[in-house]
């Protein structure tokens, strides 16, 4: 009896992971579909490493804020939920900043500048409002993780595009995050690459993001077209 229950829960959980993952990484991607958190996204995606740094910090904040909002659901009153979300997010971000500064100082020296930017990321309050305030702890934490992961991936891809086109390198300054190991991670494609300033400047971020969104839409369209065809060919009446 207990075995079946455990199995069922596991099945449910992995299903939940799949749904949540699909939503966070693709169909509901914070940066590509919801178009939230663009301020920090456009500001720091000059390089892969910067993107990765902001992504990780955002992911941690999303998981924590979603979990806490989910836990306090019984006491939430709808009139004052927004100020409460703001309070929670601001406290979490400040706490993360202090804890990192005290115990992970090396990492703080790298990510420190990104952390205040997270407060301006409206995707966090959006997830608190749209998801965590209506779902249980596990689902909310999972949603925060997947949303954060989706955001991080877009940051890395956009950072990679801009770094590659703008500077002709990949993983530049990786030593900031990975220590001495990072020095060997930097890939320089061409020693005398002249650089392409537009990609590095803010307009390059907008253009890059636009291209990514367009690419995602093309893929989505092709996929739905294929689905329609499959459905049609299976339908005996239309045949």
């Amino acid at each position, binding site marked *: 009896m207990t075995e079946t229950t455990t199995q069922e829960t596991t099945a449910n959980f992995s299903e939940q992971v799949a749904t949540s993952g699909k939503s966070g990484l693709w169909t509901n991607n914070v940066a590509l579909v919801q178009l939230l958190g663009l301020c920090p996204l456009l500001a720091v995606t000059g390089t892969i490493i910067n993107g990765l740094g902001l992504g990780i910090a955002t992911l941690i904040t999303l998981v924590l804020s979603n979990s806490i909002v989910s836990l306090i659901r019984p006491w939430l009153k709808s009139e004052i939920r927004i100020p409460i979300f703001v309070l*929670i997010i*601001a406290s979490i971000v400040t*706490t993360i900043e202090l804890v990192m500064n005290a115990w992970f100082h090396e990492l703080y*020296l790298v990510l420190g500048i990104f952390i205040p930017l997270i407060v301006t990321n409206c995707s966090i309050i959006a997830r608190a409002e749209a998801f965590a305030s209506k779902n249980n702890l596990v689902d909310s934490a999972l949603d925060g993780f997947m949303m954060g992961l989706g955001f991080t991936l877009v940051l890395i891809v956009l950072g990679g595009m801009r770094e590659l086109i703008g500077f002709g390198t990949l993983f530049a300054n990786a030593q900031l995050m990975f220590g001495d190991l990072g020095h060997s991670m930097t890939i320089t494609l061409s020693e005398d690459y002249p650089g392409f300033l537009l990609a590095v400047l803010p307009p390059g971020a907008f253009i890059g993001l636009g291209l990514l969104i367009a690419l995602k839409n093309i893929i989505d369209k092709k996929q739905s077209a294929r689905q329609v065809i499959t459905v049609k060919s299976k339908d005996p009446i239309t045949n």
Partner: protein
Amino acid sequence: MAIILQYRKNILKTAVVLIVFAVAGAALVGITFTQTEDNIAYNEKLTLLRKLNNIIPADAYNNNLLLDTISIKPNRLLGTKENSLAYRARKDDQDIAIVLSSIAPNGYNGPIHMLVGIYDDGRLAGVRVIKHRETPGLGDVVSISHSNWILGFNNKSLGNPDSTRWKVKRDGGDFDQFTGATITPRAVVKAIHDTLLYFQQNQTMLFIQPETVLNKPEKPQ
């Protein structure tokens, strides 16, 4: 009447919930702050010493750099608006070098904070940008983590190059600017030159003045 009472009850309840969360949030931040304060101060001191040792090699002096400090009043040449700390390096009571805090007020995105190390003979021991908000990928090249540009100032002094050549190349000087960013290096070059002028005018005072006793280690910038 009953309705008003109902409202009042609602308002009170809402206020209490909000207050509870505000207090809880403030408590969380407050407790974390007190718990992390010492660690953060220690970390910042270590980081500062490491930064100073990048400017003046640790084997060039044998006094306690972090304690042999003087407080310098705001000065136009240093670009400082508040008292700043200067660190003096000595070896067996012989003056070796001083590290001054200098601020370039006219960076592209606000002030650029620097540590400028100057040897006893007026040569630059080294310069490090410690705080700035310059454009990532463009202006932030002044920072040692992004390029070696700032090392080009090592051993330069007021006469080397000439006063007229203490500019970026675009302005007819000796120092490189970067693609897409002239304002940042221009500001840095000017601030370093001004700091050297300040040193020239105040050298004796800087080394003789007794160390400023600080009740609390001042927060490094």
